[in-house]
C-alpha cells in the first residue's frame, strides 16, 4: 500500500514525453524581463524587490571575493523556490522531489566551494577542520569528525530538500485520500480531515519557501568559509 503512494514521484511520461522536462522548462515564462521603461509592471517590480532583498540578505556577510556568486545563487534560489511552490498545485510534478536533481545541484556547487577554498587559501580552508579551543588529546578524533561532516554536506544538502518535499507531498496525498474516503461514511470526520489538509497545505507552502532558502543559504555559508 505504501509503495503505491510513492507512485506520484515516478518521473511521469505522457505519450512518451517525460513530463519532468515540461516541469523544468515551462515555469520560467512567469518571470518577465524588465522592459526599457523607468518603471515596470507590478509583477516585474515584485520580482525585482525579491531579488534585491535576497541578494542583500545572502551577500552582506560575505567578503567581496564571494560576490561573483551572486548571479548563480540568485538563479538557484529562483529555480528552487519556483519549482517547489508550483509543485503544490494539483496535477503538477515537483522536480525537486527527485534526488537526482537535488544532488546534481548540491554536489557540484559544494565541491566548487571546497575547491575554491583549497586553491586560494588552503591553510585557512583546512583550519576549519579543527575548532578553536579543542583539548590537545581530542585533536585527531575531531579532525576525523570534522572531515566526515565536511563530506556529508552535499549529501545532507540534497537529501534535506528531497526528503522535505517528498514527505510533504506524501502527507498531502495521504490526508487527501483519507478525507475523500471518509466523506461518504463519516462526513464530520471528513471535514475535520479537510481542515487538517488545509493547514498542512499552508505548512507545505512555508516549507517550500524555507527549504529553497535553506539550500541556498547553506551554500552561501560554505562559500563564506572558503572564499
Amino acid at each position, binding site marked *: 500500500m505504501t509503495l503505491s503512494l510513492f507512485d506520484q514521484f515516478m*518521473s511521469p511520461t505522457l505519450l512518451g514525453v517525460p513530463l519532468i522536462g515540461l516541469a523544468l522548462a515551462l515555469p*520560467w515564462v512567469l518571470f518577465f524581463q*524588465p522592459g526599457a521603461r523607468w518603471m515596470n509592471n507590478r509583477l516585474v517590480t515584485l520580482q525585482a524587490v525579491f531579488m534585491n532583498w535576497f541578494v542583500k540578505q545572502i551577500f552582506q556577510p560575505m567578503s567581496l571575493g564571494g560576490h561573483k556568486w551572486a548571479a548563480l545563487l540568485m538563479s538557484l534560489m529562483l*529555480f528552487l523556490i519556483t519549482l517547489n511552490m508550483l509543485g503544490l498545485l494539483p496535477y503538477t510534478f515537483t522536480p525537486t522531489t527527485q534526488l537526482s536533481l537535488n544532488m546534481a545541484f548540491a554536489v557540484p556547487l559544494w565541491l566548487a566551494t571546497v575547491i575554491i577554498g583549497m586553491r586560494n587559501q588552503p591553510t585557512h580552508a583546512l583550519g576549519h577542520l579543527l575548532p578553536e579551543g579543542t583539548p590537545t588529546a581530542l585533536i585527531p578524533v575531531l579532525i576525523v569528525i570534522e572531515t566526515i561532516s565536511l563530506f556529508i554536506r552535499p549529501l545532507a544538502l540534497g537529501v534535506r530538500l528531497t526528503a522535505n518535499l517528498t514527505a510533504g507531498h506524501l502527507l498531502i496525498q495521504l490526508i487527501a485520500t483519507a478525507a475523500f474516503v471518509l466523506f461518504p461514511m463519516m462526513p464530520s470526520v471528513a471535514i475535520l480531515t479537510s481542515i487538517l489538509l488545509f493547514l498542512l497545505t499552508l505548512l507545505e507552502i512555508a516549507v517550500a519557501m524555507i527549504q529553497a532558502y535553506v539550500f541556498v543559504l547553506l551554500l552561501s555559508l560554505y562559500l563564506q568559509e572558503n572564499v
Partner: protein
Amino acid sequence: MPQLNPAPWFAIMVFSWLVFLAVLPPKVLAHYFPNDPTPQSVKKSKSETWTWPWL
C-alpha cells in the same frame, strides 16, 4: 522509492543544469538596479536628504 531508480538520473541532471544555466541567468541579470547608494563608511552623502518642497 521511485526516486532511486537510476534510469532517468543522468537525463534529469543534464536537463536541469541546462535549464539552470541557459534560461535563468539572463532573466536574473536583466534586473538592473541603477541606484548607487552611498556606502556607510563615507562621511559625506552623495545626495541630499529629500524634503517635500511643496509642503
